């Protein structure tokens, strides 16, 4: 008994010592120390410019963010799918048509994946495309102006997620449906009939190589799973697209459980050149539809909407050789083609390996018919026949892979919050570095080009807490810049971003700079209501509509006093900025305007509609501090009662 109690005491005492020493036996965290020269590597001295542009999707803000790298400084927020009160985008009469859809005016969306236009598999700095996931759309932003010039709606699509992902010469941008939906009759069916009735679509939008103008060429009707992300083939795999898809279980409820049951989901490989052949042979059906195509004409500074009523649809199960499924471990997200075009890395969010497929082996498997049966009439290529190798035990929650110029791949891991670098050929893990926190996509400058620029990897994180000063319950989203020029990745910088930056693309600044427009030439301004000289300024009444032809120049409006406007009139201020110099916009605002102000760029005309709701005198003024006399840039509108006989009168300098 004595011995026993002595033993117990020593055990207890040992226990106490252990707990006292608990801090010392705590495992060390992955090293993320910032080394001394990080600040130098991101410092861009006053007067110097950044080396790269970074374009991030604005997520639920519906916009796009533009940053300089390596400084991480925000340069601009480009309005795309959401109204912007700063510029008047979506508020001004000229830009309202940009946000038209078959559902009417839709001034918001959820934008996910910006992608730069390319020529010969290299970014060309001309345009950037971005998808709207909610009300399916694809936008084209012109990088000579950083204005959104075109938005096309996608018919027959339930959520445009795997989009826009361009082919190597921007022949096509794609839009694949995240949510499958029924196409019976009116598109209505019991949801419980998902397995039989619901289908997905992939839209192939042709891009005019000179103008960038988009045209929905054809749609493929594909099995009813959820299409997630995509990449087009390049070099040897040019002519193909690869899409990841989840929910091969075809669950229609509680997908978090019901769509994660199978060990393998799929990659869908699409031979779009083959599809084009079938289209040329007249194999497409014409489906009646209704979708909006909105184009901003720079010459008239005005957007217009065309509603399109018909679309070419091809059911892939009737047309062999277009589509093949390839098994892919659990719930794949990223589907990324390496610079050679040979290797395709997929990332199963719930998988414990990264499968890397070989394009050559896929072609051989198709030729040899190495199939494992079919899925909804689409041949399923044997996993082993398509596989080049697996990256073993890479981390938790692989999401997306980009490539550098040295044959390395960088994969983001959502669950374990890290970036893992591995060798594309050997599948060996070379390095790993933590991110803060829960990284989604990542971006290597030109990381999806035939010749990547490399040098950096940018982490696009979902969670930001404890990295910046707090700003309430919701924190700004975070991006991080890492140097990948050496053997070890090195964290250089944290910087906040707008909305949720799902994905980003970066390219050398020179590519974009060479197309820059500094101002719009007044001589080329063909806006219907342009006023090119002050002497042409006037106010014209047309029934209840009053058109104010107004000019703005440092530092006055013409006219600056207007009388004869009545309560309930529709007053259209058509403001032309007469400046012909870089960076001299003028703003225009009028008291009681309940839509927005407008920001008018040099040489541009913009229209603000205002319906005065009360008798009085409403001041109007310039909102952009344009000169030393900016505060003096103002005027008045006298508003008389409806039906009164106040004469229409306008003047400047009287």
């Amino acid at each position: 008994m004595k011995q026993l109690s002595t033993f117990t005491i020593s055990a207890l005492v040992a226990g106490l010592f252990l707990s006292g020493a608990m801090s010392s036996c705590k495992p060390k965290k992955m090293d993320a120390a910032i080394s001394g020269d990080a600040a130098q590597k991101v410092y861009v001295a006053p007067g110097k410019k950044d080396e790269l542009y970074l374009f991030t999707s604005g997520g639920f803000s519906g916009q796009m963010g533009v940053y300089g790298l390596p400084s991480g400084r925000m340069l601009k927020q480009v309005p795309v799918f959401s109204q912007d009160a700063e510029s008047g985008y979506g508020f001004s009469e000229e830009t309202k048509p940009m946000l038209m859809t078959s559902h009417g005016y839709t001034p918001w969306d959820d934008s996910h994946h910006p992608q730069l236009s390319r020529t010969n598999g290299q970014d060309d700095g001309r345009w950037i495309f971005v998808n709207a996931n909610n009300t399916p759309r694809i936008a084209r932003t012109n990088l000579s102006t950083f204005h959104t010039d075109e938005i096309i709606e996608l018919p027959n699509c339930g959520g445009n997620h795997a989009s826009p992902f361009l082919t190597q010469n921007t022949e096509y941008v794609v839009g694949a449906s995240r949510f499958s939906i029924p196409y019976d009759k009116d598109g209505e069916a019991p949801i419980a009939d998902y397995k039989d009735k619901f289908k997905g679509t992939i839209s192939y939008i042709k891009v005019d190589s000179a103008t960038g103008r988009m045209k929905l060429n054809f749609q493929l009707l594909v099995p009813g799973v959820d299409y997630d992300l995509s990449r087009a083939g390049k070099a040897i795999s040019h002519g193909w697209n690869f899409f990841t898809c989840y929910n091969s279980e075809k669950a229609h409820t509680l997908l978090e459980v019901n769509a994660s049951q199978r060990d393998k989901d799929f990659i869908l490989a699409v031979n779009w050149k083959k599809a084009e052949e079938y289209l040329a042979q007249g194999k497409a059906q014409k489906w009646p539809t209704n979708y909006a195509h909105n184009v901003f004409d720079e010459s008239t500074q005005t957007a217009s909407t065309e509603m399109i009523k018909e679309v070419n649809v091809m059911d892939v199960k009737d047309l062999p050789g277009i589509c093949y499924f390839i098994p892919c471990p659990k719930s794949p997200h990223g589907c990324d083609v390496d610079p050679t075009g040979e290797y395709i890395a997929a990332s199963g969010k719930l998988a414990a390996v990264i499968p890397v497929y070989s394009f050559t082996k896929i072609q051989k498997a198709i030729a040899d018919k190495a199939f494992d049966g079919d899925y909804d009439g689409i041949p399923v290529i044997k996993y082993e026949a398509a596989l080049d190798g697996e990256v073993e035990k890479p981390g938790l929650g692989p999401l997306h892979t980009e490539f550098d110029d040295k044959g390395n791949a960088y994969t983001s891991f959502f669950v374990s919050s890290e970036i893992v670098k591995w060798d594309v050929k050997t599948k060996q893990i070379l390095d790993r570095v933590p991110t803060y926190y829960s990284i989604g996509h990542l971006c290597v400058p030109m990381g999806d080009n035939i010749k990547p620029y490399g040098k950096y990897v940018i982490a696009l994180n979902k969670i930001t807490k404890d990295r910046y000063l707090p700003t309430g319950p919701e924190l700004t989203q975070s991006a991080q810049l890492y140097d990948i020029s050496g053997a070890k990745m090195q964290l250089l910088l944290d910087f906040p971003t707008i909305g949720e930056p799902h994905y980003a693309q970066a390219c050398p600044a020179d590519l974009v700079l060479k197309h820059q427009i500094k101002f719009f030439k007044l001589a080329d301004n063909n806006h219907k209501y342009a006023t090119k000289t002050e002497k042409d300024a006037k106010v014209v009444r047309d029934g209840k509509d009053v058109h104010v032809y107004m000019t703005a120049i440092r530092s006055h409006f013409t006219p600056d006093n207007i009388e004869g406007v009545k309560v309930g009139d529709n007053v259209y201020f058509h403001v032309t900025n007469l400046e012909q110099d870089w960076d001299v916009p003028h703003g225009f605002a009028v008291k009681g305007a309940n839509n927005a102000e407008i920001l008018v760029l040099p040489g541009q005309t913009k229209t603000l509609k205002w319906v005065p709701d009360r008798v009085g005198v409403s001041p109007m003024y310039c909102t952009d501090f344009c000169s030393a006399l900016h505060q003096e840039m103002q005027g008045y509108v006298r508003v008389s009662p409806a039906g009164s006989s106040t004469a229409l009168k306008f003047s400047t300098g009287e």
Partner: protein
Amino acid sequence: MKKLKTYTRVIVFLCALAMIPANFVSVWQIILEAPQYPEGLKMEIWSHKIAGDVNNINGLNHYIGMAQIKEENFPEFKVMPYMIWIMVFLAALTALVGRRFLLWTTASYLLFCGAWGIYDFWRWEYEYGHNLNPHAAIRIPGMAYQPPLFGWKQLLNFLAGSFPDTGGYLIIVPAVVIVGLLVIEQFRKK
């Protein structure tokens, strides 16, 4: 009947007093740290309840199919406060009466409670760590998520730690002291 030394009785009485607050603070803590939780998540086990970031932990555990941690699943919480009050009572009685058999009784009871506590805690951890929903979104072959009984353990991206909390020390330290005093009293006899 052996009488206890006065200093033994005084110290045992102080131990009794020290154990009283153990009923009003957390006894044990489980800590979870991950890259996105650098400040850590903490679950506190009191004698009569669970506190801390239990909801957050449950939210995370659902990915791997771990059962929800709910207070009503633990009948222990109905018993544990009494067990502690009995410790206080036995220690106080030992101090007041000053008999050695009472010191034996108190020390044995403390050791019994300790052993039961460790076993019961391990049993629950085993249960939660192994009884996973087969339909969970994340399933890693061969992986169980049993937290450590004591110390640190890496569970996927989470570093899990299990340590006594204030209340635990308020029991462990007096228990060690009481058992130590018993040994001293036993040796003194010779």
